[in-house]
């Protein structure tokens, strides 16, 4: 009898353990939101990055993605207008909450913020539009990690201390990362602290680290510039005295290469704007390391 009771007790324990061990399903519509969720939620959650290395500016969920989201406890979007399909998605998902992680983070407006030294003209590259690329700011990501920790705790109150601890540990990591980035970028001469990129995605980064943005293309890498704007950009680059311009992984660099040739500057190795490298998602920390090292090398080269 005693043995039977022990057996039942162990079975109950095993069932309870399985029940509590099932991780919370979280879907992400952005590789950087997926990374944030993993950092904050650890083993307590299972994260599905639905974008799978595809271009974020054109991504729309497929039926299989809809099924994944329907079975998730939470869907994470980056917000600021990047996911233009959110209203329809919310209507279709019903009870599953869709969180715009970057919603409360201060926005930059293309061409309006002081970070733009060369104002994109009013054609074809979203001048006056909200810049969605907030995830390229380290302090923004720290702020976003707290948002995710709160949202996870709201859905899974039993995990609150885990999420808080995950957020605090990651926040500390990001503080260290920002200190490192600052000290690396400080080696760039002040006259070279200008970012000419093929995809107008680096304003939040530029603002955080004291760079100016000279925008060639639009917010999404495919928005083409007009010949007049390109001519204007070539003059701007020549006048700025900057040594290198930056293409981006996963995008066409035709315009940038032409501009660089005309302006007589180097084309540096590509930067990572939207969180994927060679079609694969990488961590935010890896994105920062890659971009900071690439920018520092190119703008300190003699």
């Amino acid at each position: 009898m005693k043995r039977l009771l022990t057996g039942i007790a162990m079975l109950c324990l095993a069932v309870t353990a399985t029940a509590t061990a099932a991780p919370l399903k979280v879907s992400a519509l952005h590789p950087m939101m997926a990374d944030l969720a993993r950092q904050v939620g650890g083993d307590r959650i299972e994260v599905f990055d639905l974008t799978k290395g595809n271009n974020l500016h054109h991504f729309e969920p497929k039926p299989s993605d809809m099924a994944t989201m329907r079975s998730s406890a939470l869907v994470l979007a980056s917000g600021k207008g990047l996911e233009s399909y959110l209203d329809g998605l919310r209507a279709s998902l019903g009870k599953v909450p869709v969180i715009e992680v970057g919603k409360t983070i201060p926005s930059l407006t293309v061409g309006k913020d002081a970070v733009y030294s060369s104002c994109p003209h009013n054609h074809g590259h979203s001048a006056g539009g909200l810049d969605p690329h907030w995830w390229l700011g380290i302090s923004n990501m720290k702020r976003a990690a707290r948002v995710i920790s709160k949202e996870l705790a709201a859905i899974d109150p039993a995990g609150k201390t885990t999420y808080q601890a995950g957020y605090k540990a990651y926040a500390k990591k990001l503080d260290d990362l920002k200190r490192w980035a600052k000290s690396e970028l400080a080696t760039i001469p002040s006259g070279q602290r200008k970012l000419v990129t093929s995809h107008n995605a680096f304003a939040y980064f530029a603002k955080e680290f004291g760079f100016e943005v000279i925008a060639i293309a639009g917010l999404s890498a495919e928005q083409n510039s007009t010949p007049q704007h390109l001519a204007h950009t070539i003059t701007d680059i020549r006048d700025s005295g900057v040594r290198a311009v930056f293409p981006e992984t996963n995008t066409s660099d035709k315009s940038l290469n032409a501009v660089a040739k005309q302006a007589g500057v180097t084309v540096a190795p590509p930067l990572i704007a939207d969180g994927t490298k060679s079609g694969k998602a990488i961590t935010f920390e890896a994105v920062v390391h890659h971009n900071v090292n690439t920018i520092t090398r190119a703008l300190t080269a003699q």
Partner: protein
Amino acid sequence: MIRPAWISTPLAGTAAVFAVLALLAIPLHRLTSGSAAAALTTPAGDADDSTATPAVLYLRLLADADKVSITTPDGTPVWQLDPAPAGEHDIDATLTLAHHQTELTLTASFPQSANETAVFLTVEPDHLASQTQHAIGSGQITETLHFSWPE
């Protein structure tokens, strides 16, 4: 934690506070901004201009405090920490912003025997950049901190 003997002298304590401030890259001229801000009064502002704004407050204490409280200048409680151990703390709050400005009164009680120390209060309203102000002192510190953002 065992502290080296030098840190227990009041002068060394002050030096330590300044060293931490230097690490946090706070310009020396801003050390006086707290008291200067205390003299400012909230712009009267018509009632219509005040908006209740969700914000995150972060408190960074360099030493253990017996108690810390944050209130609006008229005494409405915003945050109470009792006890308030050294380190970072955060809370969600709703602040009233008038003309993109707000004032918060910080009261911190440290053990009477303790050295001079600093308290940093960071305010991060939704859609606005975070801002940090601080107060320095020993024993009972009371200071009204002023936060403002470009409109």
